[in-house]
């Protein structure tokens, strides 16, 4: 019987799930009459989460001039929508600890994801039309389908990676997966986002980052994540040569209005921040 992406994520809930604090914040943010105070209280109910949130709020990632020492200060300075995104970013690396695999180390997986998050956030700031915090989260989540595939279908996943190497790294991973399984990590990630009830913006960024034409409500954000994924690969292998990474869909530049001249600055920026961001989001605590 053929497996489908939705079947693959059906029983993921037992292995990888988001913490209550995320769902509480999410629920409040979606209520129009919630106050900053309501959200701050939801944050404060999880002391470990609060501690991490304050550490991130006071890190150079935000570069705030005043010291953020309470949840309500964090929520009012960072913003309610943005706190929801940040809560998801803070939760997701923990959520996947229960889905180990033998194909990629979690450190390496999250390094690529965090580089993509940093690039996406930086590009969103240049664009001024996408929420940088939401784009950070989208970048962090864009490949989560890989963790599901690597854990649930390790043989097929390995076959795909061997096929990529066999092609001299010319065959894109997502196409190798489609050949081996009939679907790719983007589709699986999209299904997981649906199962987790993530906002439509994130679902589209995850599901369509290799196929930007398929975007429906959020073509601009999807195109941004498509670009960010490739620039994150440049940052990882420390190259500015576009021949060293998969091609960027030319449409993505048009849709975002971003200039290709930004590439070098963006890659350098992500490289300079990655160690700190790894400590904040993947560090043990």
């Amino acid at each position, binding site marked *: 019987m053929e497996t489908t992406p939705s079947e693959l994520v059906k029983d993921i809930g037992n292995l990888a799930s988001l913490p209550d604090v995320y769902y509480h914040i999410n629920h409040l943010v979606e209520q129009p009459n919630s106050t900053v105070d309501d959200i701050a209280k939801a944050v404060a109910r999880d002391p470990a989460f609060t501690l991490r949130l304050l550490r991130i709020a006071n890190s150079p990632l935000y570069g705030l001039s005043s010291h953020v020492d309470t949840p309500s200060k964090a929520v009012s300075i960072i913003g309610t929508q943005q706190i929801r995104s940040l809560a998801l970013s803070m939760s997701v690396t923990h959520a996947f600890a229960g889905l180990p695999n*033998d*194909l*990629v*180390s979690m*450190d*390496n*997986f999250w*390094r*690529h994801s965090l580089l993509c998050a940093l690039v996406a956030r930086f590009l969103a700031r240049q664009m001024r039309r996408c929420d940088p915090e939401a784009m950070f989260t989208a970048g962090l989540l864009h490949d989560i389908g890989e963790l599901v595939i690597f854990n649930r279908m390790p043989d097929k996943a*390995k076959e795909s*990676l*061997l096929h*990529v*190497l*066999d092609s*001299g*790294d*010319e065959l894109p*991973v997502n196409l190798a997966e489609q050949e081996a399984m009939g679907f790719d990590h983007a589709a699986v990630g999209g299904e997981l986002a649906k199962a987790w009830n993530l906002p439509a913006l994130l679902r589209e960024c995850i599901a369509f980052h290799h196929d930007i034409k398929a975007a429906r409500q959020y073509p601009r954000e999807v195109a941004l994540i498509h670009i960010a994924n490739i620039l994150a*690969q440049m940052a*990882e*292998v*420390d*190259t500015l040569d576009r*021949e*060293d990474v998969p091609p960027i869909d030319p449409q993505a530049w048009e849709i975002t209005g971003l200039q290709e001249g930004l590439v070098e600055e963006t890659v350098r920026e992500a490289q300079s921040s990655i160690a700190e961001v790894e400590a904040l989001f993947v560090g043990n605590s």
Partner: protein
Amino acid sequence: MAISPAVKQSLPPPSLPGFEHVRRSWNEHLQAYTARILPGEFYVTRSGEGISTTLGSCISACIRDNLTGIGGMNHFMLPATDASPEEAWKATNLSAATRYGNYAMEHLINEIMRNGGKRHNLEVKIFGGGRILANMTDVGRRNIQFVRDYLQTEGLKVTAEDVGDVFPRMVIYFPSTGKVRVKRLRSLHSNTIAEMENSYLSHIKEAPVSGEIELF
């Protein structure tokens, strides 16, 4: 950018005797046939084809006669020893580890010369030796040390290299022109490559090389 202007032919050029088993395929991106070698293998050619491999902590030496364009590539690593990485390769050149490296290098050089290459024309490039797994001892460094020492002893000059660091690499070498394309690979591929290298490593541990190498 294609680094070889060849037009696609329906069949790859004939391979030299002894290399018929190496799989070759058309590389659309490079517009050339390439022979893909695995850990422990080597390949020599007189045609305009490329030779490709993926490297983790292994080393590939790319050697050619820069007048005639005859050349090839190997792919090897030293078996693990009990000595420290710094001392292991120096300890004695009779150690099994070093002997395995010598074997891989001499096989390649001898095959190039058997097919008409001249020793004084040999041009060498070396790649690999990455520390691709964070929790692994730096065996790549030992491999780099070995190949540098070997080439120095043999009086062969390295004209280009990309070794060490943390990246797996994909290398495509064209002996006819000496051109080489090195692509650093994402860490997504590290475990798969390390596994290929480990299975090769356990294989050479079980089958130590004999000392019969004909020296030119």
